[in-house]
């Protein structure tokens, strides 16, 4: 049975990053051009972009070339007045109708960083639009941006998804060479809990 991983997450949560990682495997039909360019616009370059606009067209897609397929999309897609909300479960339904087994994968990133990233780039926090769809997903698998940057190949190797993952590909190190979260994090001088660690005295409440 052919299988497709459908990856989604809030804007800025690592959709491009994970698309690179999951497109590395030669047996997976994915966003291969993203392996040559650091960044590409989803709506022009992602292989299924036109089908996200109208999932009923998926019946016209040539599914004969591969056993494994990968697509990704953020919710929402686009910016300000031009943004729109892809219907993840509608896409899933249309793919399943074609006899292809799907797996929904949800990516996440620190919510504070997400908020700052979205405000800077999009002029608003679009996180609530993603969270609105989250309860509708059937049995999603959750992936972590922070885990990927910390454990890299160890984390990828541990994943049990329905498509093969090229966790040992040399390009994984290249893709993960700089942690973009670093620029958002600053030193904090002190915090209420610090003394507990030093004295060992339990704290009943904050």
């Amino acid at each position, binding site marked *: 049975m052919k299988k497709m991983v459908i990856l989604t997450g809030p804007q800025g949560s690592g959709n491009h990053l994970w698309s690179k990682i999951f497109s590395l495997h030669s047996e997976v039909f994915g966003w291969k051009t993203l392996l040559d360019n650091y960044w590409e616009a989803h709506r022009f370059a992602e292989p299924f972009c036109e089908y996200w606009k109208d999932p009923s067209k998926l019946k016209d897609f040539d599914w004969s070339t591969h056993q494994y397929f990968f697509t990704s999309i953020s919710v929402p897609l686009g910016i300000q007045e031009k943004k729109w909300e892809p219907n993840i479960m509608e896409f899933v339904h249309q793919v399943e109708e074609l006899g292809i087994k799907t797996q929904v994968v949800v990516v996440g990133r620190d919510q504070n960083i997400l908020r700052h990233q979205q405000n800077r780039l999009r002029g608003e926090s679009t996180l609530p639009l993603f969270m609105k769809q989250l309860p509708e997903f059937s049995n999603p698998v959750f992936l972590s941006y922070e885990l990927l940057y910390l454990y890299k190949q160890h984390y990828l190797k541990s994943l049990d998804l329905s498509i093969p993952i090229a966790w040992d590909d040399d390009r994984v190190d290249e893709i993960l060479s700089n942690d973009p979260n670093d620029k958002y994090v600053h030193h904090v001088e002190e915090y209420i809990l610090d003394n507990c660690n030093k004295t060992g005295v*339990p704290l009943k409440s904050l």
Partner: protein
Amino acid sequence: MKKLIIITGPQGSGNHFFSRVFSAHPKVGGWKSLLDKYWVPSDEEYFAKYWVNPEELTEKDFEGYDYWSANVSCPFYYDGVRYIPKVQEFAEKAQSLGIDVQICIIVRDQNINSEQQKRVRGEVTLPVAMHYYQNNIIGNGFKVHFLDNEAFFLHKKYYLKWVSELLDFPIDYNNPDIFKFITEDPNKKYVKYVSEYWLDVEVWHGIQSKENR
């Protein structure tokens, strides 16, 4: 067969927090004192002494519950002395007692985790934990899962529900006590606004229509 989840993470990665989450289920034995207190010293954890002397663990320690959660940070302090916990030996001893064991490694953003350790401990111990996990735990016989601090605070009960299914272990993800001591995301104080980034121009360019580029 009784089940044990060993939760371990670098110092400051969320050991207390995830221990509270797992111990909140009435069918799970473990660090129950964390349900009443925000913070408790690590050497008062239910299994604390066995991270130093795992050979002393007995069946008696698993009486009263079918499900257990145990927690230790790496490194950790027991009675004022710093140790590398014997997680692998503890797991092997529990398994020899007929307990089904899974290990969960907690992850928090590495930049934030390092900043927290630098402030509280005066040194970054994250590499110590990474070295121990990569050389002694991952790929060393037990099924290892990763628990993600940021995923919990973002997706909350949806994330915990998935973790419960993944581990086949009861988690009371609808229990409001999980959030009892959480007034705000602990990462928030570490995160600052960034006014620009080199990729922004590319992204702004890319999200215009082709004729407007």
